[in-house]
């Protein structure tokens, strides 16, 4: 046993990573630890790095215990639980100097443990489990719970809380509860008897998770669709968006089924492909239901033709794009923000679309509701641009809340009574001078009938090949996009706004950016931060980029897509926009941001004066 005494205490601030083989049931053991930390009142995040595979390949789960409630990936590992022989050497290398490695010492691995700067802790997990349980499958599953027990003892997790979590999971299955509790105890007791517990990296109860939940963005978005009143979801399965529609369906089965008749107030349609999925959404939305699809980049590529139709024929629709690494099939189980330009200008011809950028699961819930209101108010497609990191990882969020007085904005839809009073209805006439026309639904009134088409049409809805008639409609659509900028969520400003350096970012970069701002502030470098929440850009975006001498645009793609969008859609001089990019597929950490800003300041003496000029 190496000497642990000299290591500095790091209470409630360390990273624990589990290296597993996928399909072995490790997820429940890992989330057991994550939830225990949360229930001890300590802020925590859980990130899953998994392969595009069903069974047998390496998978990792990373728990960041973060007393300061940072949401980003830490970028290092303090304690590695190395349970996968295949990745063992790599996992050993990843442990930060001064960190710990826990491995199954049933089989000797002495040749692979060449790290004098870390503490290696061997636990004969397989031996312990094999001596106490029968059956191959049971042993594989319970070995996970046994290492959870070891970890619990080492980091001083509250055993009562873990036992309570087990009771909640297996409450009605006594045999499963008994075997899991026993396996947990095996690991826990072994560690207590043979290892020096706790490690300097350990937990202490806090009071910082009250009023919070641990949830992933896809679940929150699916729930948001239920609260928005969506009745139809049409989709084609694709990682990492599948769990969004699964969540919607699950919540609908809970909340939308008549207990007496079994009749369902929803339809989830698994389409034959993404082309059909978006077609179904358009058909349903056109017919007055709130409908949506969930997909990822490849799906958006396929949906482009219909998105253009929806834009031009002015049909509301909501599209969730849970981004993954592209181009092409790319890395389906890794995260990226590579679809910003794709969604902003999807389809051929002159098209521009409303895009919302949630930064966390909480915003996925609220923006889901907002997306339907915007789509129906503006009669146009609305994209909600999430990503794998937000969508599939466990985030600590404030409790979701609902105002029971909320009424959805169904936009300008003429009722039978209103139609009866009209002399004649024309679909695309701008009656209110806000570039948004009135629409009608089939079956409501004979006067409401019109012909929806993607071919050239005039403001009366008739077919046209006349230049002036065509331009009148597309020019109004351009004005409608200006109207849209007034309705979309405003950007969020952090800082007084008078620093010379500005940071602009979107979506899941938020956690890394906020942490970087704290790190920089400790080094007396002060910056303002504007988080863009929507496209078209609100006027605040333009004024922010115009009023800062140097702007760093932080995003997760290779080609600086947000920066491109800013140069196209604001008045900013593009030479003032510098990019900080992270696109390798793992969630962003604060380090590249800190490094890039420090490097830029070092190269530009003019800017090094900034901290002194804005003392805090």
């Amino acid at each position, binding site marked *: 046993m190496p000497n642990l005494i000299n290591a500095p205490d790091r209470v409630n601030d360390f990273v624990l990573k589990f290296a597993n083989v996928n399909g072995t049931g490790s997820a429940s053991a890992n989330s057991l630890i994550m939830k225990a930390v949360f229930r001890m009142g300590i802020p925590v995040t859980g990130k899953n790095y998994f392969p595009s595979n069903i069974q047998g390949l390496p998978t990792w789960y990373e728990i960041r215990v973060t007393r300061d409630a940072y949401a980003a990936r830490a970028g290092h590992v303090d304690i590695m639980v190395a349970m996968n022989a295949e990745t063992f050497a790599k996992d050993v290398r990843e442990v930060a100097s001064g960190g710990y490695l826990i491995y199954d010492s049933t089989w000797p691995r002495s040749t692979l443990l060449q790290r004098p700067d870390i503490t290696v802790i061997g636990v004969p997990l397989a031996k312990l489990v094999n001596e106490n349980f029968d059956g191959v499958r049971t042993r594989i599953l319970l070995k996970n719970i046994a290492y959870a027990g070891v970890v619990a003892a080492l980091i001083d997790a509250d055993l009562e809380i873990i036992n309570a979590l087990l009771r909640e999971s297996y409450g009605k299955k006594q045999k499963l509860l008994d075997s899991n509790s026993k396996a947990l105890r095996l690991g826990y007791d072994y560690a207590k008897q043979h290892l020096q517990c706790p490690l300097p990296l350990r937990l202490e109860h806090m009071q910082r998770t009250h009023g919070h939940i*641990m949830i992933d963005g896809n679940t929150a978005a699916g729930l948001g669709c239920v609260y928005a009143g969506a009745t139809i979801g049409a989709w084609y399965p694709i990682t990492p968006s599948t769990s969004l529609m699964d969540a919607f369906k699950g919540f609908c089965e809970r909340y*939308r089924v008549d207990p007496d008749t079994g009749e*369902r107030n929803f339809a989830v349609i698994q389409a*034959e492909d993404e082309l059909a999925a978006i077609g*179904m959404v358009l*058909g349903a939305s*056109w017919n007055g239901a709130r409908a949506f699809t969930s997909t990822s980049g490849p799906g958006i590529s396929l949906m482009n033709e219909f998105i253009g139709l929806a834009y031009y024929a002015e049909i509301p629709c909501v599209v969730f794009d849970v981004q993954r690494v592209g181009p092409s099939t790319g890395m389906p189980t890794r995260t990226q923000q590579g679809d910003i330009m794709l969604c902003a200008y999807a389809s051929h011809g002159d098209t521009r679309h409303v895009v919302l950028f949630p930064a966390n699961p909480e915003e996925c819930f609220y923006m889901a509701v907002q997306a339907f209101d915007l789509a129906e108010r503006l009669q146009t497609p609305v994209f909600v641009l999430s990503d794998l990191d937000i969508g599939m990882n466990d985030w600590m969020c404030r409790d979701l809340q609902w105002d029971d007085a909320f009424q959805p904005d169904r936009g300008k839809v003429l009722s039978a009574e209103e139609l009866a009073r009209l002399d004649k209805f024309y679909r695309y006439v701008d009656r209110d001078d806000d570039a948004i026309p009135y629409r009608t639904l089939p079956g409501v009134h004979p006067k409401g009938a019109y012909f929806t088409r993607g071919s050239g049409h005039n403001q009366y809805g008739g077919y046209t090949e006349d230049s002036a008639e065509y331009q009148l409609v597309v020019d109004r659509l351009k004005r409608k996009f200006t109207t849209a900028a007034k309705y979309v969520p405003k950007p969020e400003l952090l800082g007084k706004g008078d620093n010379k350096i500005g940071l602009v970012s979107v979506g899941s970069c938020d956690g890394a950016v906020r942490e970087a701002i704290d790190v920089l502030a400790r080094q007396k470098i002060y910056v303002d931060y504007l988080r863009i929440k929507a496209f078209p850009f609100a006027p605040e975006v333009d004024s922010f980029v115009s009023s800062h001498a140097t702007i760093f645009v932080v995003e997760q793609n290779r080609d600086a897509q947000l920066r491109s969008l800013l140069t196209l859609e604001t008045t900013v001089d593009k030479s003032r926009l510098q990019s900080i990019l992270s696109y390798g597929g793992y969630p962003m950490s604060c380090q590249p941001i800190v490094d890039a800003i420090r490097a830029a300041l070092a190269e530009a003496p003019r800017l090094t004066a900034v901290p002194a000029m804005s003392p805090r």
Partner: protein
Amino acid sequence: MSFINKPKVSHPSAPTNALGLTRRQYEGSMSTLCAGCGHDSITAAIVEACWELDMRPEQLVKLSGIGCSSKTTNYFVNGAHGFNSVHGRMPSIASGANAANRDLIYVGVSGDGDSLSIGLGQLVHAIRRNVNMLYLIENNGVYGLTKGQFSASADIGTRAKKGEINQMPPIDPVLLALSLGATFVARSFSGDKAQLVPLIQAGIRHQGFALVDVLSPCVTFNDHEGSTKSYTFTREHYHAAVEADFVPPAQEISVEYSQGESIPVRLHDGSHVILRKLAASYDPTDRSAAYSFIESKLKENEYVTGLIHINESANNEFHTVNKSNTVPLNRIPYGKLVPGNAALEKLLARYR
């Protein structure tokens, strides 16, 4: 400009239906198709069928893709909402629209290019999903708007106007639909209005996906000698196997129908379709028998027409499978859809 308003002239003594509407009130805009196009005859048959069914125009939803056939949804029932979507993708629009409002009548008009090439996938899956709609294929074996290329329904050996001979086997929509378990499969000819009108009516009333393949010669690009979809060839090889007649729910079935080879099939809304078999061996309720018969006749270059197959006992219409509320989903009040804050607070316990 090919959007022409038709003058609204109606003879004062023109007959009216039960809603007091004349046939004229079921018409649409002026057709811009070539003079003599078979599609215009199908449009006229749709007008007649809707008028006879006493359909409220706003209860109808007209859907189409892209192509000559798809333009025709603009040429009937101006009082109905129309949706001219993108090429080959009408079935998905229809599926979504139907999911949102199960109470309306959905009529999709497509062509052989729209349905059998670019849109084959969507057609196949709309059949599988058994979406309640009438799906008409105006089938002429040729691409008209792009000037005469073969479509996927062109027969082997048929000659294009410019002389090229088609060598690839055709996709027959009737055999395709039968193999997929479609519950209503018919074929007709644009020149046979007497046969087409009752087929359209029965297809509309059928609770599920009703496919009607209508041979509709293209006068401009596929009406020459050597074509197997010309008027001459079609008339010569036309083989009516089953005559269908449609009897609305209020009307009693007269004695003559119940005699001989007639089979009255009751549709879900109480109306009947009366099938008179012209070939004694043929049973339109037996899917595999229907398949063999059609296939054997195709080998002899014979187009079997009529209501080829009907299955009123299938219980897999989309909303039946989905267990949808009988109230259309687009009409359920928001208050019934939102679980509220109390439910949300309770739910959050799961995430702590």
